[in-house]
């Protein structure tokens, strides 16, 4: 792969000009994307693919002439093929798409948060795990020291239902009370994301298994209800939380759990 420091070189192909324009706009908002070239037909797309190395290709499936699937099959035969993400209006092609090695499959119109998830998948395709354990493999912060009445105690991560940011501090909400700790919420997110914690709001990190109920208030805002309080869920995180909850529920996390 050729992704250098200048960010990914991306090609977006769709015969509907406004669709490709919107996709380009959304892609350029992503920090890892360096440049985006577009094509509204497969011949132009093939020329662009031949002209320069590309890291990622976003492909519409249904196009006149050669369709996206055929183009992707051609790409798959290259020695160093770009990562392919399909973008289509219909769900029926999904199985075939994954069959030819696509990284992801987006439905039109594309939601920004869904595109974000697709770019994360692309990242994994571009930089497959090297096999060496990452530094985070050491379970840092499985317990967090807190000051309580002049003494240092430890709050177990598994007891934390949710984390609330207060400037440079966070408040860890547990059944035994809330504890103020000096650590940025983004750092806790990094360390705890593998342990079922998910960012649901600019200021809130939530333990997925702690959710008892998803609630919406009268104005349409979403709340995750836990036994120690309700956590606001922002609109752009709602989808991911729902997917994490669905995934956890499918694994039986909520059946007879202790939380």
């Amino acid at each position, binding site marked *: 792969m050729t992704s250098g420091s200048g960010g990914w070189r991306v090609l977006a192909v769709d015969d509907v000009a406004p669709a490709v324009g919107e996709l380009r706009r959304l892609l350029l908002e992503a920090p890892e994307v360096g440049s985006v070239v577009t094509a509204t037909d497969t011949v132009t797309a093939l020329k662009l693919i031949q002209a320069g190395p590309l890291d990622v290709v976003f492909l519409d499936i249904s196009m006149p002439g050669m369709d996206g699937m055929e183009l992707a099959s051609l790409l798959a035969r290259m020695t160093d093929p770009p990562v392919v993400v399909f973008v289509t209006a219909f769900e029926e092609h999904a199985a075939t798409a994954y069959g030819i090695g696509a990284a992801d499959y987006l*439905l039109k*119109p594309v939601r920004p948060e869904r595109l974000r998830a697709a770019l994360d998948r692309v990242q994994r395709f571009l930089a497959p795990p090297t096999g060496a354990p990452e530094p985070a493999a050491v379970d840092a912060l499985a317990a967090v020291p807190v000051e309580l009445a002049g003494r240092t105690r430890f709050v177990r991560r598994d007891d934390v239902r949710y984390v609330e940011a207060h400037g440079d501090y966070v408040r860890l909400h547990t059944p035994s009370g809330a504890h103020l700790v000096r650590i940025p919420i983004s750092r806790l997110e990094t360390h705890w994301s593998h342990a079922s914690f998910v960012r649901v709001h600019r200021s809130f990190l939530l333990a997925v298994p702690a959710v008892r109920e998803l609630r*919406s208030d*009268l104005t*349409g805002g979403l709340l995750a209800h836990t036994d120690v309080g309700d956590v606001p869920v922002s609109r752009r995180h709602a989808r991911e939380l*729902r997917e994490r909850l*669905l995934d956890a*529920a499918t694994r039986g996390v*909520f059946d007879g759990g202790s939380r």
Partner: protein
Amino acid sequence: MGVLAIGRRIVGELRAGLDGPGAQSAVRRLHGLLGADAVGLVDLRGDGVWAGRVPEPFAAREVVAAVLRTDARATGPGLTGLPVHARDELVGALVIAGDGLDRAALLEAAAWVGEALERARLEASAEVAEQAELRALRAEISPHFVYNSLTAIASFVETDPERARELLLDFAEYTRHSLARGGDYTTVAGEFAAIEAYLALARAVLGDRLKVQLRIAPEILPVALPYLALQPLVENAVRHGVELTADGGLVQVHGEAAGSEAILTVEDDGPGMDPEHAADVLAGRGNPHSVGLLNVDRRLRTVFGPGYGLVIETAVGAGTKVVLRVPRFQPGVVA
């Protein structure tokens, strides 16, 4: 076997039409009943089934051709051909070989066959109509809601482009879900995503008049259910409980696990209705515009069994609560 019993058999055997599997046997019974040398039943293409020995096949073909051409009785050497009518329409010919046969009995036999075929046709078209009805019910997207949503979105394009964009994505999600193919299953999570898209649009249209509370336990999110089992109930509650009232109303949607079942309820605090009217709706005798409930009820029973229909709790002035139960795990129902 008595004549009546034989007649009943013949009617049954002709249920699938002249080219159905029972036609041969029906013709054999007619053959015995009429005491003829041979009996043939021929459709409009000239293809037929025969019983007995046809003395002159060539002459028989001539007679069939004459009957079908003229839509009237035709005769040949030792042969009588009669037109067969279903709903006053020529559908084939009955050909009888033999001498000295009772002419009235032959006419009666032709009429009998015609009526049997007519009934077969009616049954087939009733089945098609029922399927078409279920399909039509499924694809029910309210044009009213579509235009209101688009109008609301258009109004935000200038003043709040970000919201307009967001609402259009919701609109895409709403229509995608509503246009999903029949016979498919989704999850409670999928249905709730569609409900949220719908509610975002409804809020844009109705503003403060619409108040909604959703409460859903995460453990039922993976439960499989037919597409559009829950969302139409919410749409129904908004339409009847909120839109029709001047100062708006509250719609509550609640989902929780209860043993091996998931219980989902949709409740509004609108005008409610006479419980007898609610029973009529579920029995298909209600207002043709409120087919949403009926449709959901029918599909749930089809998928999960007769015990899993909708339960409507309502009274005039007391709002409406619709309760839906689905098994958390049902063999063969996979999203």
